[in-house]
């Protein structure tokens, strides 16, 4: 998986948990919280959906790595690739 594909995965999850948000112009280098109405409940959902859909575990201490699309991709892409390598 590439970083770009990973961002798409995260955006797809956000589209499902926050269907009332306009995601057409999300800037990858800006904190998601600063451009979308997302609170801690929504971040919990992103983490839970990553686990449910993709089997990716994000420990609580690493939530901060999901702050922006760029940081999410940087953190999650290796996890996706490690998981793919295992199967």
């Amino acid at each position: 998986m590439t970083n770009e594909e990973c961002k798409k995965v995260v955006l797809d999850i956000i589209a499902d948990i926050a269907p009332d948000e306009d995601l057409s112009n999300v800037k990858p280098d800006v904190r998601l919280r600063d451009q979308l109405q997302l609170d801690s409940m929504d971040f919990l959902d992103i983490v839970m959906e990553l686990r449910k859909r993709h089997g990716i575990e994000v420990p609580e201490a690493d939530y901060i790595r999901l702050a922006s699309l760029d940081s999410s991709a940087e953190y999650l892409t290796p996890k996706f690739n490690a998981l793919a390598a295992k199967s």
Partner: protein
Amino acid sequence: MNSGSQYDVAIIGAGLSGLAAGIRLAHFGKKVCIFERHNAVGGLNGFYSLDGRKYDVGLHAVTNFVPPGVKGTPLGKILRQLRIERERFALCPQKGSRVAFGPGGERVLRFNNDFALLESEVASKFPAQAAGFGRITRFVREAPLTGEGSGASARRFIRESVSDPLLEDMLLCPLMFYGSAREDDMDLAQFTIMFRALYLEGFARPRDGVRVMMRVLTEKYREAGGERRMKCGVMRIVARGGRAAALVLDSGEEIVADQVLSSIGAAETAALMGEAPVVGRTLGYVETISVLDRPPSALGWGDDTIVFFNDSDRFCYRDPAGQVDVRSGVICFPNNFEYGPGGGLKEGFFRVTCLANFDSWSNLPEERYRVDKARWFGEIQESARRFLPRIEPADALERATVARDMFTPTTVVKYTGHFRGAIYGAPEKNRDGRTALSNLFICGTDQGMLGIVGSMLSGISMANQHILQASVPAA
């Protein structure tokens, strides 16, 4: 024991908070079962049919209503968290409500779903208090959605900004009637939650009542894979080693669950553990319902949605000394929401709620109970009608009435199991939901978020905090 009675999470009670919690947990793959003693879902927000007519138990209006596109509100949060499209709740906004004080309702504050109306009412009727009211409003706007200032007195807080006791009482009356379990005062956190729910946000209602919302929730829960067992109450919680080790059902069957969420109330839950329940002072209510052969507006009653009334110098929100306190109360006309062209209700409804004393209603011989109900039905409506336009002829209401129903605190006990018919639960709330048992948590009324949206948010946040969040690895 067969594996069928082993769950990740057992939820006690299929009301709004239990169902909302269940949807969250089932969605994220937990094996969940909701146990409900009654044969219908809904709990304190249930519904029923009588002589072919459909009634809501508790719903006057859904509070916390905001139009589509308004973000960062409790309604938006529950829709997101439960993955429910807003349209499915089919919420229709109110026309307009008022607080009417004085023997004939001379002092009036009108409000609707546009906060500017209440602001202008305060500015024109209490000009000296407008700045203070603005300070209160700013505090509430900045408070977290779960409330701020837990334990403090709302009256003391209001008095720092508003010096006219009439305005203080008029502002508190709707908030207390729609969600205070505390006599004559409110917990400040509860005040901020309710001020937001009623004044900053507003009222709405699905045309067909609360059952519309309950249907959406039960469908969502089923689709997510949740299990539900009706007429299947929990009789006992077996505690062992500081944990809820098992649940014993009314049938004697034993259920094992890793975690338990109880939505039935704090004292009610303690009683399941064999503890003598500590029930503090509680508040009970009666409600009269008249079904009319025409909309209330056609009777000459105008188009108020809700009227909060009080005839006395000070507003007294207290467990009455007698069976009912008719000095104050709430009138609701479910017809007066914006249902759109041709969307109105087929019949008219006139509902009145007043405070009632549980002890003087419980254990009455059947005949006496019936007689008392009939007598109070008349007195309650008569009291409420002082705050509505006078209609002619004198027996116009009588003649337009095609059916009646009434509930008392004992009705609430009978159908919901809430001790003493305390619709808003105990005066002291358990905001973090923890109990003496490490895997047993409280959600719903006694956790502290009230109303339709609030109770769902309670179930959601307790499920998130104690079960989903806890399942995320620490590092």
